[in-house]
């Protein structure tokens, strides 16, 4: 890229625009998604194979590495635009290296669109957001944050500029900071980190403080298991977040910014470093931004892997070089933040939305979503759904639409049981909540939280007591340990739950667990610790019968908790001559009756590994799990010993 004189952004953008137009209308392009998720699915092999084949064939094709389109179930994704074919761009997936030859011969060199590998054609909305008309999910989705994700090259700032990047910042720098704040206020934007605090209120408070310097922190410490929204945004479109941060800095009068992200996100770190250097080079970051009198620079900070550092005051302590522990609020960071100075801490997605709001106007934004929760929500849809991935829907979309229409429903014809929203400290909602609109207030009322946007779908094969134990185990290990409720209370909940999944405990313990959770929710030093009560309280609220089955009947209804199940071979179903289970059992716990050839599980030898159930041929499905364990005796007696 040519070195540009600062303040000459318009020329640069015009050049980028021309190059982009040419690329879009007349060049043969192959876009390959190489974010972390795509790489895990093998996209680097796909990329390498494309590179080799295209070189070998001498084809004039542009290989473009892009970010994530959110269609995780179909990774690695490849998008080919062959203008000569007269066809629109086509999206393919999953494309491993084995499929590359077919695509090169078919659609790179020829005009055969290889429809057997295609997901659909790519079309564009008025604002340039790509969508796939063949996929019904795009009718529900509205991509404000993910607009560029999976379409532009995140390492090429010209792509961002060509799509209007930093134009908003140019305009914002000509406006009074108060006007920027009031635009965000008009948008009624609420923080995307999870708590949903009105962004403009925070900004105003910080702006009013008569103290210098002021700081901006972008919270990219995405620690929730199963959540990857912030990673995708930063890996796929880092400049939108940087632009949002510079706009925010102008609005509150900050001179320095930080992006605090996980060091376990190496690609985020790498791409942000490149993007920050590019931003400095074209003069949208650093001293005298775009020739104005405004100075602001951003520093990248890598966290050391502590979940607690996602809490804003712990994050501030960590940046200061202290142990990453939350401190009591108030005072809020907007008043007393980093190094004791006024500081605004916002989530990655909040900054990305700030850019959109200042571009399109607060009024426009406030019309999307619901009156109290405006705009869109990004979810990482995972668990027992057909099409896992990133989803961006307007606030107020129902859970049913997200799970069934966007996610494609539950696989293998199983029954939906619960949806876990808001990360480990979120809540598990039952089928009765499926028609709940997804917004901050509805979720809170139901006992869950918006959280950072994790959404894990559970079906009938998931035990809710074990699910609660799993999340509390995570929280007990990851809470900072500073206050009594967080350190000892959460651990005590875990000890009780660990007993429940073994069938130990009684109704009084259920009561103790519930009261303990309520106390932790109210008495913790920080909201992160307080939210540790959510997985327990919501599972007790919606799935109390499962808890009661565990403690009263020593029975696990979902047949998950190891201590409460036994394996049994159903005589009527067993083929008898087949010895799969006998031969694979690692502890020789399955024996064959010499006379009848029937199989029997010796319970004292069985370690409940489940191998017999896995290997029993599906046409027989003779191995079953039963709970409570004693039930196996009844079955054996009924079968005649």
């Amino acid at each position: 890229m040519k070195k540009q004189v600062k303040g000459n952004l318009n020329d640069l953008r015009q050049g980028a625009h021309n190059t982009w137009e040419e690329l879009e209308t007349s060049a043969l392009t192959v876009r390959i998604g190489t974010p972390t998720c795509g790489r895990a699915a093998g996209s680097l092999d796909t990329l390498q194979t494309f590179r080799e084949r295209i070189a070998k064939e001498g084809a004039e094709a542009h290989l473009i590495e892009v970010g994530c389109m959110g269609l995780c179930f179909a990774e690695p994704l490849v998008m080919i635009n062959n203008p000569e074919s007269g066809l629109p761009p086509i999206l393919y997936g999953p494309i491993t290296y084995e499929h590359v030859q077919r695509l090169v011969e078919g659609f790179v060199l020829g005009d055969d669109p290889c429809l057997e590998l295609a997901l659909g054609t790519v079309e564009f909305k008025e604002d340039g957001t790509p969508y796939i008309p063949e996929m019904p999910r795009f009718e529900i989705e509205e991509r404000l944050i993910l607009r560029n994700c999976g379409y532009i090259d995140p390492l090429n700032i010209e792509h961002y500029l060509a799509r209007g990047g930093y134009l908003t910042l140019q305009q914002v720098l000509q406006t009074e900071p108060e006007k920027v704040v009031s635009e965000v206020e008009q948008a009624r934007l609420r923080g995307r980190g999870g708590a949903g605090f009105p962004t403009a209120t925070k900004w105003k408070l910080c702006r009013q403080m008569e103290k210098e310097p002021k700081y901006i922190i972008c919270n990219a410490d995405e620690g929730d298991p199963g959540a990857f929204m912030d990673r995708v945004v930063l890996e796929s479109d880092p400049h939108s977040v940087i632009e949002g941060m510079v706009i925010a800095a102008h609005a509150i009068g900050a001179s320095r910014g930080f992006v605090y992200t996980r060091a376990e996100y190496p690609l985020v770190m790498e791409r942000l470093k490149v993007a920050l250097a590019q931003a400095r080079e074209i003069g949208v970051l650093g001293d005298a931004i775009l020739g104005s009198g405004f100075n602001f620079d951003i520093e990248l900070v890598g966290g050391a892997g502590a979940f607690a550092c996602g809490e804003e005051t712990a994050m501030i302590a960590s940046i200061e070089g202290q142990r990453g522990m939350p401190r009591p609020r108030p005072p809020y960071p907007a008043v007393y933040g980093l190094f004791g100075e006024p500081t605004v801490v916002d989530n990655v997605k909040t900054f990305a939305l700030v850019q959109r709001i200042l571009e399109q106007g607060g009024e426009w934004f406030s019309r999307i979503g619901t009156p109290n929760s405006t705009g869109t929500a990004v979810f990482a849809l995972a668990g027992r759904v057909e099409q896992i991935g990133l989803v961006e829907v307007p606030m107020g979309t129902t859970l049913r639409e997200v799970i069934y229409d966007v996610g494609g429903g539950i696989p293998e014809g199983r029954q939906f049981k619960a949806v876990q929203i808001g990360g480990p400290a979120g809540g598990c909602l039952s089928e009765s909540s499926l028609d709940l609109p997804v917004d901050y207030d509805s979720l809170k009322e139901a006992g869950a939280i918006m959280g950072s946007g994790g959404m894990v779908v559970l079906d009938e094969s998931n035990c809710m007591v074990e699910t609660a134990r799993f999340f509390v185990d995570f929280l007990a290990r990851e809470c900072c340990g500073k206050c009594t409720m967080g350190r000892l209370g959460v651990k005590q909940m875990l000890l009780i739950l660990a007993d429940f999944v073994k069938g130990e405990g009684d109704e009084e313990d259920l009561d103790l667990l519930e009261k303990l959770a309520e106390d932790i929710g109210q008495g913790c030093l920080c909201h992160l610790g307080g939210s540790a009560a959510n997985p327990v309280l919501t599972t007790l609220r919606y799935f109390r019968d499962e808890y009661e089955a565990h403690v009263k009947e020593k029975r696990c209804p979902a047949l998950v908790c190891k201590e409460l199940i036994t394996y049994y071979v159903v005589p009527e179903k067993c083929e008898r001559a087949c010895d799969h289970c006998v031969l694979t059992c690692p502890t020789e716990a399955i024996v064959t009756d010499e006379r009848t050839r029937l199989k029997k599980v010796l319970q004292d030898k069985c370690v409940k590994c489940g191998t017999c159930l896995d290997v029993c041929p599906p046409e027989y499905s003779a191995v079953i799990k039963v709970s409570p364990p004693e039930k196996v005796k009844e079955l054996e007696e009924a079968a005649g010993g």
Partner: protein
Amino acid sequence: MAEPVTEKATVELTIDGKRVRAEQGEKILWAALAEGIAIPHLCAIKEAEPPLGTCRLCLVEVEGQGVVASCVESVREGMVVHTDGERAVALRRRAMELLLADHPLECKDCPKKGKCDFLQLSIAMKVKRPKNYRPFPREELPVDASHPRIIFDPNKCIRCGRCVWVCKERVGEVPFDFIQKGYEMRLTTFMDKPLGESDCTGCGECVEVCPVAALCFKEGG
């Protein structure tokens, strides 16, 4: 003695029905204690800003606001505080129960016998070690007697953080701090070295503020 020329602004609030004047910015806890109204507390240090807020024993209720930590929340004009609100009392008891459940109750042979703030507070709060809790899986750690003046018994520590605060703020030394997280969080020296090999000057400020027998002077304190 002459009257101070300028007085700090004060506010009036109500604590347990009693009208109280307190300096602007004062925390509820200290305003109450100054008026003889008792609120349990262990980790609180008046000069600590921001406050530690770790023990959760000083929770009170504020009308229109709910449960707050009185060592953290500042007084406001017209504020109405109830130290005996049902929820606040239940939460304070819960915090005390949790601390007791995790503490080795070997009071008979304890060097702090008779002067243990923690034990006295639990008696005042009428809280006993709960029987229905699951036992915490605390592993016994060796007692560190390497320092010429101070004995450090990590098993007795309730992790209030007072010692760390005084050492950093008053003495300026940092021979020890908390490591690990969650239930495993514990107080130790840099690289887990014996206290005697650390930078500890032995001033004893930490011993003075320790509410249990985690930090004691040698020879019976």
